[in-house]
């Protein structure tokens, strides 16, 4: 695991993969999830962003998080800036803890990225409630645990796509 990770980290990430994965996550968020689904759905865009923040913070940084956040606000038709703030905060925390997090396998990273996930949901909730929304149900915060579980397949999938391409290139 560590060796393949090191090999991937040596090469810069392919931009098509970065954009493609963010777009795919965004499209997943655009699906009509229904009233319960919207509370329980994982924050796909944030998970993909966390992966790229860990992998390559100099290309996908807090600015990318901010932009993705604005687009998420458009998708959710919420207050502009709520997700932007949330993703900027999560990006900062992830990039700060990056070197420490990189030493762990995805399953061990999952509980350690929980603070970012919770922080992001708290920030969007604060933004929404301050501008007239009502508090979401407890399920919305419980969905952090679903985020945590989904993190493992998301990061592994992106990692192996990355690995595949760097093999082909070398």
């Amino acid at each position, binding site marked *: 695991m560590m060796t393949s990770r090191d090999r991937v980290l040596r090469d810069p990430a392919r931009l098509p993969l970065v954009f493609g994965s963010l777009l795919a996550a965004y499209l997943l968020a655009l699906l009509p999830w229904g009233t319960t689904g919207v509370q329980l759905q994982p924050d796909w865009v944030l998970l993909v962003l966390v992966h790229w923040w860990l992998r390559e913070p100099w290309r996908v940084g807090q600015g990318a998080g901010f932009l993705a956040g604005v687009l998420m606000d458009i998708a959710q038709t919420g207050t502009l800036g709520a997700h*932007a703030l949330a993703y900027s*905060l999560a990006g900062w925390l992830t990039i700060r803890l990056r070197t420490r997090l990189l030493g762990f396998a995805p399953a061990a990273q999952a509980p350690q990225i929980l603070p970012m996930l919770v922080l992001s949901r708290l920030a969007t909730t604060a933004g929404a409630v301050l501008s007239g929304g009502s508090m979401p149900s407890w399920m919305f915060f419980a969905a952090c645990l679903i985020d945590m579980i989904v993190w493992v397949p998301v990061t592994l999938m992106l990692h192996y796509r990355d690995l595949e391409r760097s093999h082909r290139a070398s």
Partner: protein
Amino acid sequence: MTTPEFFQRGPSPLVRLVFFSALSVALMVLDARYRAADALRSALSLLVYPAEQAVLAPVRVAREAGQFFTTQRRLQTENDDLRQRLVVAEVHAQRSQSLDQELAELRRSAQLPERGKGGLVLAEVLHGGRNPYVAKLVLDRGLGAGLRPGQPVIDADGVVGQVTSSTPLAAEVTLVTEQNQQVPVRVLRNGLRTLAGGDGVTGTISLPFLPGGADIQTGDVLVTSGIDGVYPEGVPVATVSRIERSANRVFAHVTCTPVAGVARDRYVLVLTAPPPTPVANAQGQTAAGAAGAPAGPPPASGAAR
């Protein structure tokens, strides 16, 4: 790319955090408090529109494929049901046409302003919104079809909600059951006027300002009173489902169920024409008109429109 990454530092993460947070907070304040970001929202939503359609297309296909396999018998019963309802509705429509004429004549003879006939836009509900904080419906019509924020939305049974934002190709309806959504209502049985407000998550409506001794019963139908100038008069809103009175509270705790299929509708009607002027206002106008300005429109009518 040739320079090693650790030389391309730029501002530190904390500086970036402060910068982007400040930007986000500014955006939030501009959007929520001053409605100044609407142009940006419109432009960005047009950008997102193709992606949205691409995602919704398979969902629509699945929905239609599901309909394709409905049984003949179900279609038959539905058809019979619709036919019966059509006959009843047509009889009602005929009666209401003659009543409308009569009312218009009476209003003319009493020198009351005529009631405006509302423009109606039929819109399909695309999806139930993606916002976990506010229950909304997203419609397939927007600014292009004349949908503007503030217009009331109804279905065959009653009030659904109000358009709260519209982009060129879509509009958002905030449901009548949401917090902060208030509708002035009248009890159909005795004409008692009060204000109904949504409860949020529970999907019910309550009457927060009704004194403990008010004449209200379970099963009472609440209709819009029309004094807000937003909703037309007499559209059903909810039926009273539970009343709790207690000696140590000034107000009764009245819970109501919305009559419209608030979150289940597939098609809704948006009333695009401004509703008739509120009664008190209209009387003021006629009084002013009778007092000494018979020629020319009353000054208040321009402000009311």
